C-alpha cells in the first residue's frame, strides 16, 4: 500500500463518520447533564441568575484555552490524519498525551507508511487513557460518598480542603510557568496584572457585566503581550 493510499484511508469516510458519532455523543452527554442539573437547580431553589452566571462565565472562560487545542489538531493531523486527530481531542485525549502515545508507537515502526503501525497507535491511544472512565464506572460513587460524609462531619474543613487541592494545582502549574522565566514569566505576570486591574475597575465602577469577561480578556491581553515580548526577542 502506498503512502498516498494510507493517507486517504486516514482521511477517509469511516474515520470521519466515527468522529461525528463521537462528537454527537459528547455533545449529547453534556446537554443531558446540563438540562438535568438545571432542572434540579430550580427544584432546590438555585436562582436562574446564579446558574446563568455560572454558565456564561464557564463559556467565556473556555474560549481562550480552546485555541491551543484547535492548533494542536493541526500538529496531530499531520501524523494521524484530520478525523482521528479530531476524535482524539474531542474525547479524553490531550495534545501531550496523544503526541507521547504516537511517538511511543512510532519508535517501533513507520506510523505514516504502514497501516498496521497506525492501527497499533490507534489502539494504544484508546487504551492508554481509559483508567479515568474505568475508575468512574466502578469507584466514583463510593468515593463521592466518602467526600460527602466528610462534608457532613465537618463542612468548614471540607470546603477548605477542596480550596487547598485547587490551590495546589494552581501552585504547581503556575510555578512551572514562573520557573521557565523569560516570556512565560512575563506573560504570567501580565495576566495577573490585567486581572488585578479588571478587579479594581469592577470594584470601583460596580460594572457587574464585566465580571464574566475579565478572565478571558485578561488572558487575551496577556497572550497579545506575549506576542510583543517574543517579537522583542525577550524569549
Amino acid at each position, binding site marked *: 500500500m502506498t503512502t498516498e493510499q494510507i493517507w486517504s484511508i486516514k482521511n477517509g469516510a469511516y474515520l470521519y463518520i466515527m468522529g461525528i458519532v463521537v462528537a454527537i455523543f459528547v455533545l449529547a452527554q453534556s446537554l443531558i447533564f446540563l438540562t438535568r442539573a438545571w432542572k434540579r437547580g430550580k427544584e432546590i431553589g438555585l436562582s436562574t441568575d446564579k446558574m446563568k452566571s455560572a454558565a456564561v462565565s464557564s*463559556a467565556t472562560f*473556555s474560549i481562550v484555552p480552546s485555541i*491551543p487545542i484547535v492548533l494542536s489538531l493541526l500538529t496531530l493531523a499531520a501524523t494521524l490524519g484530520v478525523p482521528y486527530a479530531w476524535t482524539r481531542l474531542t474525547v479524553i485525549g490531550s495534545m501531550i498525551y496523544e503526541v*507521547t502515545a504516537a511517538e511511543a508507537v512510532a519508535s517501533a515502526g513507520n506510523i505514516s507508511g504502514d497501516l498496521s503501525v497506525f*492501527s497499533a497507535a490507534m489502539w494504544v491511544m484508546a487504551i492508554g487513557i481509559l483508567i479515568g472512565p474505568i475508575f468512574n464506572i466502578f469507584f466514583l460513587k463510593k468515593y463521592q460518598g466518602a467526600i460527602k460524609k466528610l462534608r457532613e462531619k465537618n463542612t468548614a474543613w471540607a470546603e477548605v480542603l477542596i480550596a487547598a487541592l485547587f490551590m495546589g494545582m494552581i501552585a504547581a502549574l503556575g510555578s512551572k510557568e514562573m520557573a521557565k522565566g523569560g516570556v512565560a514569566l512575563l506573560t504570567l505576570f501580565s495576566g495577573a496584572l490585567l486581572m488585578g486591574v479588571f478587579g479594581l475597575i469592577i470594584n470601583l465602577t460596580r460594572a457587574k457585566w464585566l465580571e464574566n469577561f475579565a478572565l478571558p480578556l485578561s488572558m487575551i491581553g*496577556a497572550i497579545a503581550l506575549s506576542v510583543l515580548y517574543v517579537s522583542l526577542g525577550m524569549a
Partner: protein
Amino acid sequence: MNKQTKPILSEYEYRTHRLGRISTLIGLLLILSIPLFFCVIYDVIPNWTAFFQGALKIVPMFYAVGIIEIINYAPMLGAGGTYLAFITGNLTNMKIPAAQVGLDRAGVETTSEQGEIISTISVAVSTIVTDVIIIIGMLLVIPLTRWINSVPVLQQVFDLSEGYVISALFGALGVVFISRNWKLSVAPLVCMLALFIFLPGAVSNGTIGALSIPIAALIAAFAARFMFNKGWLVKKEKAERK
C-alpha cells in the same frame, strides 16, 4: 429519621451516578470501537510489536497518574462534573478552572448540592464550547494552519507545551483565587517554586510535571489542615460577625 439510616447520597445524586456510569460505559465502548472497526473494515492486523512497545511506555505511567488525578480532581468537580470531564479531557487547562470559576461566580459552596449542580453546569457548558470550537477549527483547519505556520511568533505563542497560553491562564486565574485564599497558596507556591527553580530539569520532565500537581495538592492540604486547626482560616464573614 435515625441518623445512621439516612442515605449519604440524595436521589438526584444516585441518578447522576447511574447516568454517569451508563454514559461513561457507552463512551468507553465508542472509543474502543473506532480502532476495532477500523481493523475490520480495512482488514488490518495491528503491528503487535509496535502496540506492546507503545503500550508499555504509556500505560504504567498514565494509569498511575490517572488514578492520582481522579482522587485529586473529583472533589473539585463533583459527581456530574467528574463523569463529564473524564470523558472529554483537558482537566487542568479547562474543566477544573471552568468549574471553579462557575462556583466562584455563583457564590455557592463546592461540597453542597448547589455546588454539585453549578459545577455540572460549568463543565457541561465548557465541554460544549470547546467541542464547537474544535469543529469550527477543523473546518478551518487548512487556511488556519497556513496562517499560523506563516507567522513564527504566533506558532511559538500558541504551542501547547512550549507556548504561553497556559502562562496567561494561570496568571489571571492565580490572582482571582489567591486573592480569595492567599493563606492556602503560600506553602504549595513556595515548595513548587523551590522545586522548579532548584531542579531546572523538572520543568521539562513529563513525569515530574504530572506528579507535581498531586504533590502540591498534598502539601496544600497538610498546610491547610495545620492552619485550620490553629484557627487561622476563619471565614471572613464569621470574623466580621465577631
